[in-house]
Structure formats: C-alpha cells, structure tokens
C-alpha cells in the first residue's frame, strides 16, 4: 500500500467499533436522518460520524438505502428529518447540491453521468468551481477568462494523464465505455478540489485491471488529504483500501468497524444472508478466505473452489446491476420533483 500517508490520517485503533461511534475529527456528522418513501423507511440513521482523511466504505445489501443516503447527504434528496454537520458547520435540512459541492463535497453517481455530447476535456474543465467565464457578461469577453481557462485545461490534461484517459481527450464522452465513464466521472469530480469525495459504486462494471488503478487513485486522494466515502459490494476492494467500514441494512447503520472486524461481525453476515438466502455469498466466503490468510489482502493462490465462488459472485453482481437501474429511476424522480 501507500507509504506517503497524509499526516492527519489517524490509526483506527482505539475507535469504538459500534454503530454511531464517535471519531476524533469528523468531517461529516449525521444525526437522526430519516427518509421515508410511503411506508418504507429507506434511510433511518441515528448517528454517524465520518473521520477526516479516512477512506470509509459504505456497504450493505441491495436496497439497504446506501444510494438514498448519499442523495440525502449531497442535497439531491431532502430527508424527512435529520441534521448534517459538514466541517463542523450545520447544514440546512433542505440544501441544493450545488451549494454543497461548492463547500467541498463532491459525489459520483451509481449510474454514471457523463456529459455525452461534450468532449472528455470539456467534461473535465466543467468541474472547476467559480470560473470567471461562467458569469454572463465576462463570458462575452474572452481575455477576461482565457488565462484561467488555459490553466484549467492544463490541470485537466494532467489529471487525464494520471487516469490514463489522455488518448480520449477530444472524443465525446458518449463514446467512452462504461468503465471509462466511471474513470471520467471520478477525474471530473476531482477538478472541483473537493474535501470530501463520495463515490457510489466506483468499481461496478470496471474490469479488474482498471479497478486496481482506480483503487490506487482513491488511496492517492486520501494521501493528498481528501476524505473518501465509497459504496462497494466487493469485499476484496473494501479490504484493500478502506480504513473503516459502515454497514447499512434496511436503512439503518447496523455495524461499524475496521474491514477485518466487520468480516467477523455476526450481525453483518446475518444482514446479507437475510436478503440473499438462496445464493452463496461473496462477502461471507471472501471473509473466510481472508481470515485464513491472517488479514492479508487477497491476492490468493489459484483455488478451484474459490474460482467457482467467483462465478457465483459475478452472476450475483449482474442481478444487482438490474436492480440499480430500477432504483435510480426512482431516485431521479425523487431528486427532481
């Protein structure tokens, strides 16, 4: 893993592994947040603190409320009740996403939102906040914003190189593959200079090699001082990069802790089995493997049984992808009306 840790990143020892545990330096604090869809309590979080400079994984079965929770935190949806403190400052219950983004909270979407008919480089340049040329009158006079535009472009090009997307620079974003779009969305969000980056399933549909480089980017961001929350279904990934894991089920936070502690947590295993009683579980199985390895990240030896299980896990994920589409259609309605 990385050697150039950010000095602000504290170890996880001594932090209580219980739902709603307090952290020494939370960037985000959530209190009694409830989102009700008719009779369904999609989100019902009593208390949650997200430690600054950590990578926090948010996991949970399909329909647990992770995306809804993200929507609430980022202003794309309004909670029925609940309070959020960001950087120690209380946010109003109803706040627009753009305001939160300008305060340093940026997100990506489970269903990637690439700006299809804009070139990749324009997608990137859009991310920068407070551009002079984004106001109506200055926009008319190029000399007023040209210099800033050039420096933005330079930065965007550097990021594209870092994300190995520079060869697609001038293509329309709509021509990118699904995985490339994930990369673009993440790179674009970094153009906003965020403090808190919230990634909704950044690795879904991304091939293993690309996933690896994506994960390196994520840890790289942490080392630069950013805080990351990401939703993830693959426990390998969670083990590899997360400092802390928050588990959601049926809208509630049911567990918190280090990745190792979470894989041994009975309540978590139950939550997953409860919703997946008929299929073998990636999570449970991978957990076992990791325990056998004494907590080493799984770069495991070839193993017939394990490969089999991977197949199962894969099928499972494809089902997941179906669910998402339906869910997100809902979410969008919720967010725009």
């Amino acid at each position, binding site marked *: 893993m990385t050697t150039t840790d950010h000095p602000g990143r504290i170890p996880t020892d001594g932090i209580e592994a219980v739902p709603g545990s307090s952290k020494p330096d939370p960037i985000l604090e959530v209190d009694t947040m409830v989102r009700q869809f008719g009779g369904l309590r999609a989100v019902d979080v009593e208390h949650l603190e997200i430690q600054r400079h950590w990578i926090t994984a948010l996991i949970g079965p399909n329909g647990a409320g992770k995306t809804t929770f993200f929507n609430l935190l*980022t202003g*794309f949806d309004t909670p029925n009740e609940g309070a959020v403190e960001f950087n120690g400052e209380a946010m109003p219950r109803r706040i*627009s*996403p*753009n305001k939160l*983004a*300008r305060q340093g909270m*940026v*997100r*990506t*979407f489970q269903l990637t*939102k*690439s*700006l*299809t*008919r*804009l070139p990749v480089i*324009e997608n990137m*340049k*859009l*991310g920068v*906040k407070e*551009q*002079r*040329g*984004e*106001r*109506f009158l200055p*926009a*008319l006079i*190029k000399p007023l*914003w040209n210099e800033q*535009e050039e420096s933005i472009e330079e930065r965007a090009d550097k990021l594209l190189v870092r994300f190995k997307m520079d060869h697609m620079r001038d293509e*329309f974003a*709509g*021509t990118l593959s699904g995985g490339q779009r994930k990369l673009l*969305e993440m790179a*674009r*969000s970094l*153009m*906003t200079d965020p403090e808190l980056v919230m990634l909704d399933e950044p690795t879904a549909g991304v091939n293993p090699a690309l996933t690896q480089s994506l994960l390196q980017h994520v840890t790289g961001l942490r080392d630069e001082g950013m805080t990351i929350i990401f939703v993830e279904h693959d426990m390998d990934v969670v083990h590899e990069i997360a400092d802390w894991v928050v588990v959601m089920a049926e809208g509630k936070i049911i567990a918190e802790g280090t990745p190792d502690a979470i894989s041994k947590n009975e309540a978590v295993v139950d939550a997953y089995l409860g919703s997946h009683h008929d299929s073998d579980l990636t999570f449970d199985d991978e957990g076992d493997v990791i325990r056998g390895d004494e907590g080493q990240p799984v770069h495991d030896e070839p193993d017939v049984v394990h490969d089999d299980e991977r197949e199962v896990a894969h099928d499972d994920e494809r089902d997941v992808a179906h669910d998402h589409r339906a869910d997100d259609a809902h979410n*969008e309605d919720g*967010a*725009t*009306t």
Partner: protein
Amino acid sequence: MDWEVIFRNAILAGISREAAVYAIAAVGLNVHFGYTGLLNFGQVGFMSISAYGVGISITQYGAPVWLAFIIGLLAAVFLALLLGVPTLRLRADYLAIVTIAASEIIRLTFRSVALTDWSGGSNGINGFADGFYVWNPFDPSVAYGFGSVKVFGNQAYIIIVGWTLAVLVTLLVWLLMRSPWGRVLKSIREDEDAARALGKNAYWYKMQSLILGGVLGGLAGIVLSVGQSTVQPDVYSPPVTFFIWTALILGGVGRIWSPIFGAVAFWMILSLANNVLDQATQAGIVPAAVTAGVRGGSIRFMIVGLGLMLLMAFRPQGVFGDRNEMMLADR
C-alpha cells in the same frame, strides 16, 4: 412554367423580413433547446409580448421609439421570469406545457374585447412604427435590388435591419457558447444533476438561458411588428412557434449558423412549393380543381411537410448537425 418568376420569388422569400424574423427567433430557440435542452413551445409568446410592449408604449403612453424597444424587450424578460420561476425546478416537460399555454393566453388576452381600448382587440395596434422609419435612409417610392429581385425602400430598410440583427445575435450566441458559461449550459442539456453535483446552479443558468432566448424571441417580434407597421394578435399564433422549430431543425439543432440557414431555407422552400404549384396549374400540368382556393395553400404545406419528413428520415441531424454526435444521446 416561368422559372424566372419561381426563382425570383424564392430569393425574395429567402431574404424577406419574415425570414430574418424567424432567424432571430430561431437563434433564441437554439439557446433554449439546442444549448440548454429547454423545451420552449411558446416562442411566439415572447414575440408577441415584445411587439405589444412596443405598440402599447408608443400608442398609449407616447414613448419614444428607442424607449419603446427597451420596454418591449423588458416585457420578454418579464415573461421569461414568469414562466421560469415555477417550472425550471421541475422536469423539462413542464416548461413545454407552460410555454405553449402562455403563448395562447397572451394572444387571447391582447385580442380580448375587454382590453380593446388598450391593445386594440382583434384589430391590434396600427401606425406606431413611424418613428422607426424616420431613420430610413432609402426612398420608400424607389425599388432597390439586383436584376429583377427588387424591393421598395421601406422593405429594403427593414430587411437590412432584420438581417443585421440576425447576424449580430448569432455572433453574440457564438461568443457565449464558446465560453465557460456556454459550457455550463451544455452540461445542463446533457445532465442537469451532473452539473449540480459539480457545483453549478442549474436553476439559475436555465433561467439565464430562458431570458436570453426569450429576449431574442422578443426582438424578432419587434422586427416583425415594426416591419408590418402593425401588431395583430392572430399573427402571433402557435403555428409560428412550430415554423420556427422547423427552421431550427432544418438547419441542425445546437449549431451556430443553423437558425439563419434554416429560416432562409424554410421560406425559400415554402415559396418554391407555392410558385411551382401555381405555375404548374397555369400551365395545365396540375388540374386547377386541385389547387383552387384555400386548397392550394394547404397543399404547399403538405409538400413542405413531406420534405421535412424526408429530411428527418435521411438527415435527422439537420443540415449542419453531426449525425454521430446526435446518435450519442441515445446510448
């Protein structure tokens, strides 16, 4: 068949003040739909409110022409705010419904009997444009032009003013759309939530776009009313909006020069259909019974409609559009 007449009329239609008016209004619609993705089905509402703004402020309140023009354009700003405030936070379809309804409400209000003293009822307002023709450098009784393509002085004046404005607003939109401001509009067109997640106040940008495009619609309405020296409510009826859409789509949505090209092409095609039909009837190629009376008028629109259907089938992106780019949206 007299092809000289056919082509002369087509050219006259292509450069006519109506074509200039449609071009300006289509530039506005292009800002709305082509760059921001706003569905405005009531562009004619912006045209009429500005035209009436000019007419009423001159005839009722004796405003000087320049002030009347400003008032007319401010009326369009006001209409944009009125339509935008309640709808721009909602999904795109709401704006579509509200704009088409508003354009009819405006027309019916101005032509209502109760307001006859103020807005002239169904006769509209006449004789307010004299102040504008004071600046006419041409002699109204002389025909200007090249060869047999000639127009009288007042026409020449309004045509030149109209097309100058059409080119100027096109350049204005070009300046805006190459800027970061234009980039935000396009990002909203592509995905509003993505723009908001990146800190852009999508609502406010959509409002700016609605105002800008609406004011351009208003400008078109002013040129039309001044050119006709009259504002008549029924000139500003819903088909105008759809002709403007046609011109825009003909040229290619979201392209800088397509409104001008589309407006010229639309009027030329209409004139060609009309004149070819006329000449063919006179020459006995088409039976007179087919084109008699109102039928002739309907048939020319049927021909234009057929042409448009063929265009959509073979070149759905319009003349200037990029088919690959357009197909991306469906991926």
